[in-house]
Structures are given as C-alpha cells and as structure tokens.
C-alpha cells in the first residue's frame, strides 16, 4: 500500500548505523482540505526495529513526526551481513515491515 521503506545499515567498528526513511503521509489532523473539512489524523504510532530477529528498539510516535519519517540509530555489536528489520503500525491499524542487510 505504501512505498517500501529505505533502510541503510552501515557497519563501522563495533556498531552499525541504521538510517530509515519511511513512506507515510503523517497527517496531524490539524489540516483542512480545500472545502474546509478537517483532514483526519493518519500517522505511524508504533515502530519496531529488530536486529537478527531480536527487537532492539521500539518507538511510539505522535502527530508531530514529519511526513515520510526519518529515523537514525546505532545498533551495538552489529556487523556486515546481519539483518535489520523495521516495522511500523499506524493509527488505522495498517502496518508495514521491511528488511535490510548491514553493509
């Protein structure tokens, strides 16, 4: 339904830096359309990041996160070849999960 997430995971020393760009409108519920009707809030509420299948980071987001959310974090002890997967759930109950390999 949405475009795939762009995940880049780069190993450097004893950690890997993960950069994720998600594709999501992240409507705050504050905007009005041309007719003056409020555009309902539609935003990612939960994000889960896993390293080789183990959850390492979870996040809860509100409507203040920018459209097409960006997230960067570092996984300790990750090395080239490891799998990083990111999953999100939005306030409609829709979800998306993408995976990348640490370079």
């Amino acid at each position, binding site marked *: 339904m949405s475009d795939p997430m762009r995940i880049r995971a780069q190993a450097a020393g004893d*950690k890997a830096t993960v950069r994720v760009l998600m594709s999501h409108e992240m409507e*705050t519920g*504050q*905007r009005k359309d041309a007719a003056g009707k409020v555009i309902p809030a539609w935003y990612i*509420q*939960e994000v*889960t*990041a896993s*390293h080789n299948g*183990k*959850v*390492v*980071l*979870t*996040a*809860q*987001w*509100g*409507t*203040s*996160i*920018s*459209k097409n*959310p*960006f*997230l*960067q*974090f*570092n*996984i*300790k*002890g990750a090395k080239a070849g490891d799998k990083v997967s990111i999953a999100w759930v939005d306030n*409609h*109950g829709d979800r998306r999960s993408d995976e990348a390999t640490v370079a």
Partner: protein
Amino acid sequence: MRHFTAHPATPSPAQRRVNRAPLPSRREMLRRSAAVAALLAGAGALPEVAQAAYAQAAFEAKSLADVIKALGVSAPVAHPGLLLTAPDIAENGAVVPVGCSTTLGGVKRLLIAVDKNPSTLCAAFELSDAVEASLNTRIKMAQSSNVYAIAILVDGKVLFAQKEVKVTLGGCGG
C-alpha cells in the same frame, strides 16, 4: 458407563447460536483490545513490558508538564550529559531535524517534545541494551518553541535538555 466429553471442536447447539454472530473485524478487535489495554494501563494494572500500550494520554498532552504527568514519571532535571541537537533556525517547520544522545548508562527511554506543538510529545523511544542512546529523527514544529529531549533511566531518574528553535514557516498545517 463411560462419560463421553464432546469433541472440543464441536459446538453445542447453544454455542452454535452464539457463534452465528459475525466475528468483529480485525480493525474492531484492535480497537477494542487497545481500549481495554488503555483502560488497564490507566488503572496501573499492566506490567511494564517492552512494547507497552500506546501512550494516548501522553500524546494528547498539550504541555511538557502534562506529558510528564501522563507518563507518570518524576519531574525532569536538567543534565549536561544529555545532548539535544536541533537547528537554531528551522527554515521549514514541517521538517526539523533533531537528535538526542547521551553517553550516560542506564537509559531506558528517550523522549522528544516540543512545548508549543498541538501534540507536545513527538516521540517516545524504548531502548534495549543493544542500541546506543543516540537517535535522530525529523519533527514538525507549529511555531518557534523550546524543544526538549528527555531521558528516563532504569533507576527512575528523569533528565532533560532543551533548546530553543526558531521556526520561520510553521509545520503543523494550521
């Protein structure tokens, strides 16, 4: 005489009458279980697990003080070891890059909040031991405001750092 118990998969006639009602849609189930979880969490009956129920009340709070109250943590104390990076001036309030990091140990949660946003709490990150306490993301800012990074440690201490960010074009769509 042997007592025969019904095969578990065979519903009794009474059960079949009840079963005829259609199952609630997945969306409705999610909504209901979220409501029950929120109710339980509000009553303090849910244990603190890695993926806690969505902190609706905290995200609806309209000031930093209300966010802290909704999260049920102690009042934050300024700490130089908690670093908040954000631009002095944000050209576009819809996309403001912020980062929070610390080398202090025992950080369980990192929060980002914008005082003057309609939804003050932007994000609440729950960290495992496998990640560094260092995050970057992009937030919306409705207007020039203080941005806060809040770190909650395993021992219950709450630290904060703040920075004033001026916004030339507000980003919440109002």
